[in-house]
């Protein structure tokens, strides 16, 4: 009999075996800042659930190990991930005695490694399936819905990260909306200013090197320094320009964070606009000129649609970067999920760090998938139209 191993599967099975049998599944702590005690899968779960989870992990790892059909691999990764997600909540309830509000149960390294390897398996299957852009967004929506359902159902309520959330539910949503406003607002401002600037740089060659150099140098200033440096000029404007303070412009807080993110966003938008416009085939331009199109008609009817996918790539870079950088706004009182991260680092309370970091990563990840799908759609549409 000819048994064939899957190369990636060997790696996945080996790591999964280590995580399931040797690494701790959950950490139990008497309160939120004392060092925790490790619990394995069998210790952390009720009598039937523990062996069940081990069995699921072993079967899924075996499916990964051998060369099996893609559908089977897909099912194995989804079932394993779902079981892990559900049972980690069960472990939280099982390890916390009823009525104990101080005890904290958090997922430990074994859980995270298992999640990582089965996500790897899922990612591999999805990559090999070569999904269409719509299907990828659909998968993202399904995963988001499943996580939302778990959150609403209360299955995870006994996990420490949700206990941290329960203590700050109001400020979580307030900081969250600030975070999104900062990231999206500065992107919008950068597009409004960057697109015309990019078009101008494309048309006027003398301007191009100068503008791009200045924007390049802005990128080299470390984010925390740029945030800090804007405090002074904005403070001055707030104090001396009538009406500025009423608009919410202040030395510290959201305003300097917004301006800093805007400045960082300009380079990718302008540079990609220039590259995109430069990549428009000369023949397309000549044809448009030959048809008697005016400069403006040529820009909006020919150059801009053709350069659009490249410009979108710049916007994707900016959005993902801004969602990450907005965490630093918390250092200058600008709010956002960074508030929880830095509070957590200060108190060495890792659950609080996770409360800030997990939504940030999730947002950036979702933004990347959605924009990648949009870019692919516009690029294929363009190819079909020009073919």
């Amino acid at each position, binding site marked *: 009999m000819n048994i064939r191993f899957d*190369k*990636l599967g060997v790696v996945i099975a080996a790591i999964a075996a280590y995580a399931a049998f040797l690494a701790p599944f959950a950490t139990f702590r008497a309160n939120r800042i004392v060092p925790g005690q490790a619990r394995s899968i069998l210790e952390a779960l009720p009598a039937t659930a523990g062996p069940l989870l081990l069995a699921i992990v072993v079967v899924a790892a075996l499916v990964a190990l051998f060369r099996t059909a893609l559908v089977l691999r897909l099912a194995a990764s989804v079932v394993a991930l779902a079981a892990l997600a559900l049972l980690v909540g069960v472990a939280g309830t099982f390890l916390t005695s009823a009525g104990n509000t101080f005890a904290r149960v958090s997922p430990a390294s074994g859980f995270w490694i298992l999640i990582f390897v089965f996500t*790897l398996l899922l*990612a*591999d299957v999805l*990559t*090999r399936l070569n999904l269409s852009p719509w299907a990828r967004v659909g998968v993202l929506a399904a995963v988001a819905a499943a996580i939302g359902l778990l959150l609403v159902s209360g299955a995870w309520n006994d996990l420490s990260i949700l206990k941290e959330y329960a203590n700050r539910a109001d400020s979580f949503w307030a900081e969250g909306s600030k975070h999104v406003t900062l990231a999206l607002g500065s992107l919008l401002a950068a597009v409004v200013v960057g697109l015309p600037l990019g078009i101008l740089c494309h048309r006027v060659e003398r301007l191009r090197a100068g503008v791009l150099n200045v924007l390049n*140098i802005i*990128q*080299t*200033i*470390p*984010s*925390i*320094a*740029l*945030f*800090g*440096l804007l*405090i*002074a000029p904005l403070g001055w404007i707030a104090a001396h320009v009538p009406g500025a303070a009423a608009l919410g412009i202040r030395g510290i807080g959201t305003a300097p964070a917004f301006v800093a993110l805007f400045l960082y966003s300009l380079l990718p938008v302008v540079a990609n606009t220039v590259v995109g416009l430069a990549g428009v085939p000369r023949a397309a331009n000549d044809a448009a000129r030959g048809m008697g199109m005016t400069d403006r008609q040529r820009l909006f009817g020919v150059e801009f649609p053709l350069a659009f996918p490249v410009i979108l790539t710049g916007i994707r870079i900016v959005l*993902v970067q801004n*969602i*990450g*950088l907005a*965490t*630093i706004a918390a*250092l*200058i009182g600008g709010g956002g999920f*960074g508030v929880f*991260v*830095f509070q*957590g*680092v200060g108190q*060495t309370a*890792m659950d609080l*760090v*996770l409360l*800030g*970091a997990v939504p*940030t*990563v999730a947002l*950036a*990840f979702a*933004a*990347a998938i959605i924009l*990648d799908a949009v870019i692919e759609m516009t690029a294929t549409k363009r190819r079909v139209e020009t073919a």
Partner: protein
Amino acid sequence: MKAWLPLLLRLALVVLLVAFVTSPGWFEPLLKPLTENNAPVIYNQGSLLTLTLLHLRTVLIATVAATIVAVALAILVTRPAGAEFLPLSRSLVNIGQTFPPVAVLALAVPAVGFGEKPTLIALFLYGLLPIFENALTGLTTLPANVVEAARGAGMTGWQRLTKVELPLSAPIILGGIRLSVVISLATATIGSTVAAKTLGEVIIAGLLSNNLAFILQGGLIVAALAVLIYDGLSAVERYAARRMGREAE
């Protein structure tokens, strides 16, 4: 005259930078107007020179480690034996880029403690991506006739890799290293939020005590380092590209 002006500007920047980190006292009058209530003008809780060197050391260690791992990975997935991993490694690289540096730093703390280590981990992870991407581009866009010729000349796989493929990809890989170094120089400052000894310490001290002079000097040193290193590596890259007859990216 135009040819030597940029060179002169860079030389002036080097001289200014060295003068500033070795004897910051000379520049005190310039920064004085930025402080209030007789606050110290020059960072006084450590020497700027030491912090600059530690900052550079952190970036260097992380970049060297990232280069070795990223190039090795790129070589692996472009060999026939590792071809299976190519699409997956591409998506992983994409996913990795979405993790914000602050989150990586904060999450690394429980595993390795405060200080330089979490910073090294974050810089390493961030450094990997551009280098891997460029190494992949370099190794997959080699002129087919050159590779064929090497095979026809009877070179083994190892010989082709070290004598043909890697030297030809060198300019593009260097481009990735350059990007990675510039990102790392700026990201290393964030490491000071978890107590790493970098120039970020100066900036954070300025933020905490509302001292604009501290923020400016920390930020400017990092920016000057980034500009100089970027230019230096670009020059190396152009040299390598000329030798290999390939266009630098």
